[in-house]
């Protein structure tokens, strides 16, 4: 039994790693064939070496930490604001109808388009970056929240009412549990948007962070570091998304089907 679950665990890890390993091998083979000028395509080994030296040198960790803190800060502030707002406009349908076009406008507007404006108003400090990420995650999350709420079947509220629930009890015991799955989806969607926006923001205006690291490296034509930065961003985004997905399975395992 134990053995069985352990070997299943190993198999699942193997299945996760295999595609990435294949990708690295293809990359390495591509370089060996010489189809692409070796000066334009670093080898996996070179990138790994850069990884090690920047890691031990400390600058990689600082860049990662800067980026992660910004993403988490913007994400948490943005979704924290989006949840109550999504609740309100999901609950009071007329308000929702009124705000719907506005919210869709701001959601459709890529946050990156606002970066120059934010730089003008807020400069290039941390406030500016958090502000843009707040914007990005807020609109992504609010729309998921309120579309999720609109899709909630009224039967549960009706059942609760016939059992004698007050408005507050309906809110706390029915609406909140029913919106938790939507909050988690909102968080995941916002997370994706946040990473995209952050890197753009750091490319334009930052001293530190993975985006800045890539930008600086590109000035020196340092392809190893550029590749390293790209891989780090992908890996971190994937890691955070995986954590959220696990959390989702854990918290809302009661759902008939879980969005993955």
């Amino acid at each position, binding site marked *: 039994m134990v053995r069985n679950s352990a070997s299943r665990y190993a198999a699942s890890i193997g299945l996760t790693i295999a595609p990435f390993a294949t990708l690295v091998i293809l990359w390495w083979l591509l370089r060996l064939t010489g189809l692409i000028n070796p000066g334009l395509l670093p080898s996996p080994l070179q990138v790994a070496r850069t990884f090690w030296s920047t890691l031990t040198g400390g600058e990689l960790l600082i860049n990662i930490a800067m980026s992660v803190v910004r993403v988490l800060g913007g994400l948490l502030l943005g979704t924290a604001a989006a949840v109550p707002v999504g609740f309100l406009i999901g609950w009071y349908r007329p308000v929702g109808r009124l705000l719907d076009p506005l919210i869709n406008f701001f959601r459709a507007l890529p946050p990156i388009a606002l970066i120059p404006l934010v730089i003008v108003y807020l400069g290039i400090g941390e406030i500016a970056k958090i502000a843009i990420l707040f914007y990005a995650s807020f609109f992504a999350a609010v729309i998921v929240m309120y579309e999720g709420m609109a899709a909630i079947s009224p039967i549960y509220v009706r059942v609760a009412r016939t059992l*004698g*629930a007050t408005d507050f009890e309906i809110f706390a015991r029915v609406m909140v549990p029913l919106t938790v799955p939507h909050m988690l989806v909102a968080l995941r969607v916002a997370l994706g948007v946040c990473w995209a926006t952050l890197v753009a923001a750091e490319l334009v205006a930052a001293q530190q962070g993975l985006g800045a690291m890539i930008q600086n490296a590109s000035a020196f034509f340092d392809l190893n570091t550029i590749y390293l930065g790209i891989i780090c961003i992908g890996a971190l985004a994937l890691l955070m998304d995986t954590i959220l997905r696990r959390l989702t399975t854990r918290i809302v395992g009661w759902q008939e089907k879980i969005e993955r």
Partner: protein
Amino acid sequence: MSANAPALERLRFENISMQFPTDRGPLEVVHEVSLSIRAGEFVSLVGPSGCGKTTLMNMAAGFVKPTRGSVTLDGKAIAGPGPDRGVMFQEYGVFPWLTVEENVAFGLRLKANRKPAKERAEIVERYLKLMRLWDFRKAYPKTLSGGMRQRLALARAYAVNPDFLLMDEPFGALDAQTRSAMHDLLLDILGAEGKTVMLITHSVEEAVYLSNRVVVISARPSRVRSVVEVPFPYPRHHALQETPEFNELRASVHELVMREYAAQEAQRTTED
């Protein structure tokens, strides 16, 4: 339900009509229905699918108001849903985020009928065992079959002990054996506590077996086509269903109902 029950009127539909707006103009679903249910009475409504039975129940529950006419409970117009009327919905409405036992305990945690933890646990245990769901008490509804969900909804409705039960096809998803066990359970509960029941069903047999009166509803729009008194005294037992008297009555109600099903069918083919 018993012969000496006071004939106090509880629920009253007074000349009600109901129209729903649709793309093709207003659709009349209920037409001038008058009906009253006395305290302790068990009244069943039978009629073809789509004739407006659930709409009538929603009025009694307080979810919709009739376009014309009035619905009163104990002489007062029904303003909204409340814990005095327990509702068993056609689509169950089992809470998916709660386990089986939490579903049953839900009503008992609300201010309106809060019970101390110990008493709550006893009530939950009692109904889960009666519904044969005890072994599944920790499971989430997504793992339950349709019939189990229906029994869970029944347990939840019974647990808060309302004295007026509105039940919309509450046994439709059950197999014959379970269904008959549920009939006896309901009769037991009613016999012990003198509740009033309005039951919607497609089973004439069930209606005749359980009720004081069976109301045959016409094809849409709903009208009261006929009201059949069921003379058999309570407590009733299964043996009743084998008697010639029972079968005679069942056959005559069946005949009335079939006529309405045929009318509904004709209506549907001309509509399409």
